[in-house]
């Protein structure tokens, strides 16, 4: 029997809508959901290769409890009953002895994050965190400081933009199908692209202007762009007068940051900086200084991200077609959003978090996400309190938090490590108990609320029965909660009941998703009135260049530019990025994807390589203060000479994932654990490495 199931992909975090064709309980093909505007059947290589994941024998197949030393990968297969009994008993003992705050729960943000938050609140621990600080924490903080909204509540109109400036957001490799399709369409219609990155990418090859900027100097470039704009009156003065708080202070502040100064710092000719400022002004307001995705580069990340948004505001491009817009919630059209379990009246927890977010020491990062990279330090120092147990849900701290050796050492101090995962990930291999989750094709998930110009809801629907003895995350969490005596906060037996609970009051039911896989609250894109209707959430209800949030916490709104230290002689700045064939650390063992891209290489500038006697294709040793590894060199003049580059997420250490075991080198092994103390992101590009021929 053949049927089509509308669902949501999870081969990466974009969550593209898909149509899954199923024949006799086997997935035969996956394509983009043809009913969704901007998707129209499109998929990517990762999404298509999900069938490789479904049928993989090298993924987690049943619950396991460790039977050898930690990390030995010696396991005992157990029943779900036994696994959950084991975990709940251990957690209860830990709570009794050390309090619930000694338990930490870390996850990659996912559709069921509202359940994990509920679970942690129910057992009385403040220590829930997501991966966000390793991804874009400072962008979140930057947007709150300017608009009162987080970055996820804003997006860009790729289809109608006239000129986009992109800082290292590798749109065509770190692929968001809708954005890529919309923007290739815009380029074909004559839109312009200025791309700024120390390394050439596919996105750079589509640019009309490319600047190989000296790494870490983007803030200097932006200060000079702002200088030029305000000096020459290139900004949208009507918009600025209406919405911007602190324009005169900014004008005063950027006075010394001339294009000539920025040329010295960044290597970009002053005349070109001036030309870009004028061009953007000529096309305003349909221009975008792109603020996505990853915002985890340098310790001053929040100020660089603020400067991008300040440029958008100066162009008047915020809340306009072809510019940046605020995503609208269903409330905007009188609708009710889906309910989330953590909206219940759960008990308040008056304890500090393990990462100290929300205390005077670390006041501004978003406590809803926390700061993941603080975990190793918090465990090692038992500060602010001892941590005894960790649950990791679809999150691999050993490959994602910088300085993996330190992370491993810290985790080993815990009495209990539990992984809820689909892969034989590094953290699964280092856990005491493994609870295998069904993959996205085998499970139904919580409602995916999608705010935007048109608010919508999507549903991930089970397409086939689980291949192995696995369960969906929401059921695992509910059963664990029941065993721990807090099951009352999980009012469902099946996923369908959870969905109906979420949809109650929205006017939609689960069957409304049958025909197209999604529902919409309205037909027409919603833009707020630019003269009077911007619903800003800052205390002043304006775009706060002078930010009350920053200044009340004791931070400056416009900090002076401090150059980063340059790499010493013989060293390079390590930067990392993504490929179109893999998602972070999750897909390297996929049969199809590993065949296309089995390992990472290190990009070395040709002149630098010549000096070191390294030839293209040579094996080299790359070493930092934290670790070292052997990797193949790619010698090229497509990268800034101060820099070397490698793809994130390789060098896995779990031998049960045979295809990805020890393939390439893990960036987390090399990187130092450095944080933007204001914004909360970790600063990935601060590590210097040495390259030597083997």
């Amino acid at each position, binding site marked *: 029997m053949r049927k089509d199931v509308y669902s949501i992909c999870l081969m990466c975090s974009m969550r593209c809508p898909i149509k899954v064709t199923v024949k006799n309980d086997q997935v*035969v*093909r*996956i*394509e*983009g959901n043809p009913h969704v505007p901007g998707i129209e*059947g*499109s*998929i*990517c*290589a990762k999404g*298509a*290769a999900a*069938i*490789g994941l479904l049928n993989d024998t090298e993924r987690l197949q049943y619950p396991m409890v460790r039977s050898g030393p930690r990390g030995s990968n010696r396991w005992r297969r157990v029943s779900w009953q036994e696994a959950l009994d084991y975990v709940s008993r251990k957690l209860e003992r830990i709570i009794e002895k050390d309090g619930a705050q000694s338990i930490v729960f870390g996850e990659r943000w996912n559709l069921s994050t509202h359940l994990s938050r509920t679970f942690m609140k129910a057992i009385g621990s403040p220590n829930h965190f997501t991966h966000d600080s390793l991804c874009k924490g400072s962008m979140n903080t930057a947007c709150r400081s300017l608009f009162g909204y987080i970055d996820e509540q804003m997006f860009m109109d790729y289809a109608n933009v*006239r000129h986009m400036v992109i800082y290292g957001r590798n749109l*065509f*490799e770190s*692929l968001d*199908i809708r954005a*890529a*399709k919309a923007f*290739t*369409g815009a*380029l*074909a*219609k*004559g*839109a*312009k692209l200025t791309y700024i990155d120390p390394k*050439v990418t*596919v996105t*750079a*090859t*589509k*640019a*009309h*202007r*490319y600047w190989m900027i000296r790494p870490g100097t983007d803030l200097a470039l932006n200060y000079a762009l702002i200088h030029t704009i305000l000096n020459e009156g290139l900004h949208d003065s009507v918009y600025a007068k209406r919405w911007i708080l602190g324009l005169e202070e900014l004008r005063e502040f950027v006075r010394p940051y001339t294009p000539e100064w920025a040329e010295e710092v960044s290597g970009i*000719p002053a*005349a*070109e900086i*001036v*030309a870009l400022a*004028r*061009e953007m002004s*000529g096309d305003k307001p349909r221009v975008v200084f792109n603020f996505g995705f990853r915002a985890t580069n340098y310790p001053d990340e929040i100020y660089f991200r603020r400067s991008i948004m300040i440029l958008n505001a100066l162009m008047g491009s915020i809340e306009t077609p072809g510019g940046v817009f605020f995503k609208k919630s269903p409330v905007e059209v009188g609708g009710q959003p889906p309910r989330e379990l953590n909206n219940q009246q759960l008990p308040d927890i008056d304890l500090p978090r393990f990462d100290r977010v929300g205390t005077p020491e670390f006041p501004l990062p978003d406590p809803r996400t926390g700061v993941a990279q603080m975990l190793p330090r918090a465990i090692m120092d038992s500060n602010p309190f001892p941590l005894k147990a960790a649950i990791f849900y679809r999150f691999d701290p050993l490959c994602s938090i910088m300085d993996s050796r330190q992370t491993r050492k810290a985790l080993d101090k815990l009495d209990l490590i539990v992984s809820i995962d689909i892969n034989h990930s590094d953290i699964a291999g280092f856990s005491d108990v493994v609870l295998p989750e069904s993959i996205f094709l085998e499970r139904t998930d919580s409602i995916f609320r999608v705010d935007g110009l048109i608010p919508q809801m999507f549903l991930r629907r089970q397409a086939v029965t689980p291949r192995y003895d696995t369960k969906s995350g929401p059921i695992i969490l509910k059963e664990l909660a029941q065993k721990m005596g807090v099951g009352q906060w999980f009012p469902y037996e099946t996923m369908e009941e959870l969905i109906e609970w979420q949809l109650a009051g929205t006017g939609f039911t689960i069957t409304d998703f049958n025909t197209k896989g999604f529902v919409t609250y309205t037909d027409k894109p919603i833009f707020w009135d630019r003269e009077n209707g911007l619903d800003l959430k800052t205390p002043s209800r304006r775009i706060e260049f002078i930010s009350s949030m920053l200044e009340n916490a004791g931070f400056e709104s416009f900090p002076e530019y401090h150059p980063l230290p340059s790499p010493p002689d013989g060293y390079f700045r390590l930067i990392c990025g993504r490929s*179109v*064939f893999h998602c972070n650390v999750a897909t390297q063992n996929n*049969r*199809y994807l590993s*065949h*296309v891209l089995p390992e990472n290489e290190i990009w070395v500038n040709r002149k630098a390589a010549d000096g070191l006697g390294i030839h293209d294709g040579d094996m080299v040793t790359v070493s930092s203060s934290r670790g070292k590894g052997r990797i193949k060199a790619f010698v*090229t*003049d*497509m990268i800034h000479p101060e820099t070397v580059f490698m793809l994130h997420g390789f060098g896995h250490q779990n031998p049960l994932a045979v295809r990805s075991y020890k393939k390439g080198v893990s960036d987390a092994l090399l990187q130092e654990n450095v944080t933007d103390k204001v914004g909360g992101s970790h600063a990935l590009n601060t590590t210097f490495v040495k390259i030597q021929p083997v």
Partner: protein
Amino acid sequence: MSAYYLLQDIDKCIGCGTCEMQCKINKGISPEPRLCKVVSIGLKWVETVPRGYYVFMNCFHCENPLCVAVCPTHAMQKREKDGIVFIEEDRCVGCKLCIHACPWGAPQWNPETGKAVKCDLCKDRIDVGLLPDCVGACPTGCLSFGNIDRMSASIRFSHKAHLAAREKTGAASCTPEKIGDRVG
């Protein structure tokens, strides 16, 4: 040649390999055979901008296909109604003569079946009005497919649109120096 044409807009191609992957999945084959292939050219500097090109290559479905001529079991066939060259799998004995004969490397070896496998323009799909999988899956819409008569008109039209866009934005002369001159 077949009655169809598969057109690639090279400006829109981002080399993401979706066409290749979806093709393998739809055919239910292992990762190794590449029935279509995106050939990367570059990276190279063109004045001040880096350029890389991604060229889509699949079977040409030749007028006089050598693969058909050499096949000893008549597994390799040319469809009469539209010229699609395809393999009838049951007849293939895995002798590899077609792989040897084709100057373009179109027939591929499937290690799981021990037989040859090649692009058939997803004839089962096009026969029911669907697009070949490489075309339908493309994230940027850089591939299009249709009857050769219609496609040549479409090429002319898109060329015209392309020139019009250049006229409007000056995108064709966007090296940094030239922009500086124009604006300054």
